[in-house]
Each structure stands twice: as structure tokens, then as C-alpha cells.
């Protein structure tokens, strides 16, 4: 494999550049606590980080570890180790990355030194899964706990209504919310059992308040990207989501998102765009190729900026009554599910995420997004190993075509760079840019 020239990504914002200091500081703090053998959970997106924080629990995200391994190009080593154990190359590469990591750990008796973060992922005392969005996400921890780590697992299982039932029907809402509530209660009981602590509802309420404050800044920042020229692009976007996973509920995160908001607002006021001469405004669908985030800079070099992303996109759903903080988590989960439903969930109905991440632009929402963000085209990353996020792109392309917006679907992976070829991708991007050049911008 020849090294890709798109490996190194350039961030444009001062605030996201500062993350270079902020995150290691955070990780070091966690590492220190880990050495004192405090309980540690491996978690999945879908587990509310606020809840973990309320238990003062240490946690790690194997999915995020996957993105880090991907961006440092060590993921293939772990993935190959998992394949050697019989795990299919078709499985989600975040999963096989973790499986390979666990396998090498078990063989060597210590965390694999290939790990890109110091100390690697720590020895978990529990696994907190979530079946939100895909089935690999509950089979994954089931398999880890069967094969590599004999620790207790709680997988939450939030289901969402299919696209053709009415979530505003109180019976339907009651049906789904009962499951959400009882599931969350189960999660709380599990955490109480395995941390030996009782959930402090007052603390959870405070944490949620801080978390939602940070998220409100982040949401408002994203809305600022409707401006022409676009003040913020995808490299900053994909970097700036990380504090949501680790630091929500902390003042530091509120400060971070407030700062980013002001920086982006200032750029809007001064009309500073991501590219000198903004020619095309794009929407990005799918997971990013974490090993080649410089791809977005490459697009920018052609005058194309990504103004909105479908994944991890936070919404309006978190402005809920915090009086009963557990009910607040249920409510924000359900509200988002309903919102997504209104936006069209015919191909991705499982968006019932109790955590802070949003995501997915439904097909009925496209018209609004295309108009408000003045979009000229869509780029869709078809990730072979993550069908959960990429299955449905063909349908979205069909819907966009009805709006006169062209799409480029290209195939690769979020963590495994072996499926990437600079030359091929450049050829396709060039052809696509020509298609867009032949049309007038949607917003004008």
C-alpha cells in the first residue's frame, strides 16, 4: 500500500487546533485514575456519557479507539489479528480492530504496544453496549465477553418506530417510551451493582444541564455553516465532536463549544470562508475515512467545501425538562427519534439514541437542507464494513436527484485504509466536480 497524500488533515479553526493540548490532558487524567484500579467501562455510542459521569466512572469508547487506530494507520494490524481468529473481513472494522486488540492482549498478557494512545485501552471491569443503529454493536460486546474478557455486559436496546407508523400516536409513543425507560432503568441498576454506588440524581441533573449547554453552542455553530462562504469545514467538524464523547458535562466542554461558536460566528461576520473562492457546497453522508481526513482538504483545494454532515449531527432534541433527569434522557431520545421520523426514516429507522450524538439526514429533510445550506452536491462514503450507516445512500441519491442535486458515491472504509486509492478517488472526484460545474448552484 502506498501512503496516501490525504493522510494529514488541516484544521482551520484555532479552537479545534487547541484540542491538541486539551485532549491529551484529559486522557492523562484518566490514565492516572486507571492506574489506581478504579472501575473502567468500555462503552458504545448510545450510552449516555452523562450517566457515566454521574457515576464518576472511567470509560473508553472502542469505536473512538478504532478511529484513532485508523488515523494512525495501525488498525490493519489489529483487524488482521481478528481475521486470523475467524472474524470475517466483512464485519465492521471498528469491531475487528477491537477484537484484534483484545486477541493480541490476551496472547501477550499486556496491552499491545501497537496502540496509538499511551497505555492503550485499559482493562475493563464491565462492558456497556448499545444496539442503537446496528446489530454489530450488541454482537460485538457479546463476542468480546465470550472470547476475550470475562466481564459483565449490559447492552441497551432502544428500538425506534418504523417509518410508516405515527410516532405522535400516544399509544405508539407509549409503546416505545416504555421500552426506553425500562431499558435505561436496567442500565442504571447495572451500574449501581457494578460500581457499588447509588445514582445521584442531583448530580446527574447538573451534568445534563452542562452537557446540554455545550451541545446548544455546538448546534448553533453548525447552523452558522449556512453562511456563504462557509466558515467551517469537515476536518474541524470531525475533530470537534470528540469532546462530546469524553467531556460532556464538564465546564471545560462548555467553554470549548462556546469558543468554537464565537470563532465561527466571527468568521461569518468577517466573511472568512474555508476556501478562498467557494465554488461548491456539499453535504457529506456516511462515516469519514479517519485515516485520510485530508480528503476534505483535497476537496477544498478544488473549491468545494462540506457545509453539513449527516453523521454525528446534533439536533434540537436536548431542550428538555431536567426535573427528572432520567426521564429527561428518555425524552430527548424519543424527541430525536420523532424528529428523525418526520425527516424520513424509511431506510434508517433505528435512530433512537439515548446519547448525545445525533446523526442522519432523512430523505424528507433533504429539501430543507439543500435550500438552507445552499448545497450543490452530495458526497457519500459507502463503507463496506459499516452497512448500518451507508446502506440507504442509493435511496438518498435517488431523492437528491429529484431535487436536481448530483451525488457521488465512493467506496472505502472508515478504519481500514486498504480499500482506499488516491488515484481512483481523485478521478471520480474530478468527474463529479465537472458534473456540478455544469449546473447552477442550488441556493442561487
Amino acid at each position, binding site marked *: 500500500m502506498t501512503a496516501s497524500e490525504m493522510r494529514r488533515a488541516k484544521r482551520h479553526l484555532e479552537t479545534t487546533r487547541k484540542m491538541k493540548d486539551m485532549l491529551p490532558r484529559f486522557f492523562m487524567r484518566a490514565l492516572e485514575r486507571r492506574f489506581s484500579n478504579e472501575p473502567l467501562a468500555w462503552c458504545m455510542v448510545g450510552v449516555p456519557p452523562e450517566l457515566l459521569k454521574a457515576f464518576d466512572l472511567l470509560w473508553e469508547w472502542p469505536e473512538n479507539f478504532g478511529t484513532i487506530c485508523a488515523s494512525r494507520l495501525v488498525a490493519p494490524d489489529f483487524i488482521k489479528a481478528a481475521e486470523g*481468529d*475467524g*472474524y*470475517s473481513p*466483512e*464485519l*465492521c472494522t471498528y469491531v475487528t480492530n477491537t477484537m484484534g486488540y483484545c486477541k493480541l492482549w490476551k496472547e501477550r498478557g499486556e496491552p499491545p504496544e501497537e496502540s496509538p494512545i499511551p497505555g492503550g485501552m485499559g482493562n475493563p471491569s464491565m462492558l456497556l453496549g448499545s*444496539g442503537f443503529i*446496528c*446489530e*454489530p454493536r*450488541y*454482537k*460485538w*460486546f*457479546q*463476542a*468480546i*465477553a*465470550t*472470547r476475550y474478557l470475562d466481564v459483565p*455486559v449490559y*447492552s441497551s*436496546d432502544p*428500538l425506534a*418506530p*418504523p*417509518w*410508516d*407508523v405515527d410516532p405522535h400516536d400516544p399509544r405508539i409513543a407509549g*409503546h416505545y417510551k*416504555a*421500552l426506553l425507560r*425500562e*431499558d435505561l432503568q*436496567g442500565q442504571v441498576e447495572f451500574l449501581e451493582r457494578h460500581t457499588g454506588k447509588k445514582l445521584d440524581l442531583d448530580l446527574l441533573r447538573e451534568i445534563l444541564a452542562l452537557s446540554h449547554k455545550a451541545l446548544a453552542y455546538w448546534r448553533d455553530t453548525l447552523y452558522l455553516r449556512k453562511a456563504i462562504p462557509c466558515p467551517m469545514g469537515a476536518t474541524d467538524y470531525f475533530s470537534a465532536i470528540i469532546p462530546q464523547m469524553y467531556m460532556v458535562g464538564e465546564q471545560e466542554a462548555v467553554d470549548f463549544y462556546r469558543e468554537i461558536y464565537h470563532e465561527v460566528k466571527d468568521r461569518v461576520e468577517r466573511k472568512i470562508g474555508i476556501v478562498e473562492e467557494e465554488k461548491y457546497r456539499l453535504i457529506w453522508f456516511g462515516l469519514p475515512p479517519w485515516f485520510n481526513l485530508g480528503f476534505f482538504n483535497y476537496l477544498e483545494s478544488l473549491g468545494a467545501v462540506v457545509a453539513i454532515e449527516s453523521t454525528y449531527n446534533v439536533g434540537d432534541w436536548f431542550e428538555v425538562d431536567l426535573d427528572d433527569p432520567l426521564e429527561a434522557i428518555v425524552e430527548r431520545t424519543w424527541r430525536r427519534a420523532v424528529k428523525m421520523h418526520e425527516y424520513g*426514516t*424509511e*431506510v*434508517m*429507522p*433505528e435512530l433512537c439514541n439515548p446519547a448525545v450524538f445525533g446523526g442522519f439526514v432523512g430523505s424528507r429533510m433533504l429539501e430543507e437542507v439543500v435550500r438552507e445550506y445552499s448545497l450543490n452536491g452530495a458526497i457519500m462514503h*459507502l463503507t*463496506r464494513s459499516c*452497512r*448500518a450507516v*451507508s*446502506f*440507504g*445512500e*442509493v*435511496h438518498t441519491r*435517488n431523492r437528491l436527484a429529484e431535487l436536481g442535486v448530483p451525488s457521488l458515491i465512493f467506496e472505502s472504509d472508515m478504519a481500514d485504509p486498504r480499500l482506499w486509492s488516491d488515484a481512483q478517488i481523485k478521478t471520480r472526484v474530478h468527474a463529479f466536480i465537472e458534473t456540478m460545474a455544469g449546473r447552477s448552484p442550488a441556493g442561487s
Partner: protein
Amino acid sequence: MSELATVARAAELNAQKEAHVQELRRESGRPVIGYLCCFAPPEMIRVAGAIPYRITGRPGEPTSEADAYMEPYGCSYVRNIFAQALKGRLDFLDGLVISHSCDMVQRLYGIWTYYRPLPYSRLFNVPHQVTPQAERFFMRELLFFKESLEQFTGQEITKERLAEEIALSNRIRARIRELYRLRLEHPPLIRGSEMLELLLAGGWLPPEEFLKLLEDALEEIGKKRAAQGPQRPRVLVWGSLLDDVAFYRMIEEAGADVVADDNCIGFRVFEKDIPLSEDLVEALKDHYFINFQCPRTDRGPGRARFDYIIQRAQEYNVDGVIGYIISFCDPHKFDYPDLRDYLRESGFPMLLIDDNYSFAPAGAIQTRLQAFVELLKSGRALSS
């Protein structure tokens, strides 16, 4: 072709099942509701006055029609089913019921009903784990399903009729278990491909006729066959959906007998009766959700969730296990390494065939099957 006349009759009927069902529809004036997978009870569909029809694929047929609507990286069975719908082969369906058994079929539901809406359609949502809250959800889902069927057909699903229907389907289950027991013999009195041919008829024949077919098969075998012929290695087939006899035939041609199975259309659905308890909704929940062993449901970590397969392998005295997984089938791909290792610990070698629902290239698969059968032969020789 099977030398059993009953199986030959089933094969003939199955080959024309679309035409037969359309005839049935015309004659009875009842709507046909297609379904995939077994979480939403077909018994309910019947009691509501509709004809349940288990949709099957056509392995190996090109699925390029699906390309305009779904990505190449999808379960090839799902693509195959949707291609059938696009080709107009399922136009006779008045309704469609798809369970959220796995991600792929759930998405098939959305795409199908978006591009090819039907007079009636329902996604039957199924939790991924067996927990008290999941059980309660499943029961509510059953009631919503019942209500939606009643609305569509205008026929009430009464407790009495449901009990009758369940009793009938339990009689079918009992006959199927009897047929399975004939495979405890060595050599088995009914081959795997023959058994599957019969079971496939159950996916669309009216239950009374299906029951008759099974009874005829039992009678015919009782008269004609005694344990004779070569004693060949015995295998259990585990894995993704197999709704075509071609793969079992390949195994049989390679020199082994399929005597047991653990996949969608097989013993899994028939090994237990639906209890005719006071609360039938609860009984259906127990049967179709709790007791229905499928890797799509998370029953917690550890080996307990594989033990029933090992027990079945022991009970049927198999020499080895052949896994069949359709590409991009996550639920099965996740379980394979653990299952393989537990089987090995218990003395059962396992061969995995990873296929795109085409059984092709046949030569390559045949060679692997033959090599595995040779291995099993030597193992049997050693142990006997």
C-alpha cells in the same frame, strides 16, 4: 429427484407455488400476505382471514434490478428478494410483514414499501435481547400486529379461532418432529434435502394440506424404507437462511447426509409446541421470541447460547458441522469463531461456507465439501 413420491409431490407443488397461491387467492377471495422470518406469527395472519406466504429467494439469480435502490453491500438474500419484487414476481401479494430480525431485512422493509407500496404492510419490531422489558415490548407488538391485521381484513382474531389455529400448527410441529426423528437412524430414513423440500411447502400450503403431506410422507417412509444403504458421515448444517434445497443436495452429492440443522427454515421453528395456555399472546411471545434460538437475539455472552447446538449434534450423532453464511450476514458472522471453537472442544469439526446466496462457483464449493466429508470419514473410522 427424490424416490419418495410425497417429496416429489412437494417439489412439484413448490416449483409452482406462486401460481398455486394465486389460484387459492382467486378461489377463496382472501388476501395473500407475504412474510419473511418467523417472529410475527403466521397463525395470526391465518386467523385474520388472510393467506400467509413465506417469501423465498431464487439463489443465484442476478439481482442487478436492485442496484437502483440498494447498495451492493447488502445481504445477497435481501437483494435477491427485492429483485423478485422489482421483477413483478410478487405482484400478487396484498400485504407484506417483515420482522426486524436483522438490520438488513429491516431496511429492506423501508425500501420495499417506499418504492413498491402494498395495500397492507407492517414492520414487526423485535427487541435484540431477552429481558423483561423486551418481553413486554414484544407482547405489545403482537397486539399491535393483531390489530393491524384485523383492520386490514376486517376479520376479528378471536381467542377461540387463534387457539384452534395454534392447535393445528402444533399438530404440524409434532409430525415434523417425527420426521426429524427418522434421521436419528443411521443411515437416516429421510435425507436433509427431502426434509427441506417438505418444510418449504409449509411456507405457503394451507396448513390442513401441509399436515396431510407430512402424514403421507411418514406413512410412505414407514412402508418403504428400513435402515439400509451406505452409512455415510452425518452432518448438522448451521447458519443463515437456506430456502433452497440446492446446498443440501451438494452436501449429499459430496457423500454425507444432512441429519440435523440449525437455521431459519428447520428444526428451530418446530422443535417445541406453542403452549395452549390461558394467555395466548404470552404463549406466542414465548414461542416466537424467547424459545426461538437465532443469533440475531442477544442471549448474553458465554457458551450457554451455543450449547443447544452441541446437544443437537450429539443427539443426532453427527460427525461434523457445516456452517453456511450468506455474505454480509452479521448475526452469523459474529458467532462463527466461538461456535467453531466450542464445537471443536466437543469433538465436532466445522467447515464454513461463506457464500453470496448462489452456491457458486459450484465446483469450488463441491471440492471443499468433498474434502470435509473425507475428513469426517476418517474421523468416523477412527472412532468406530
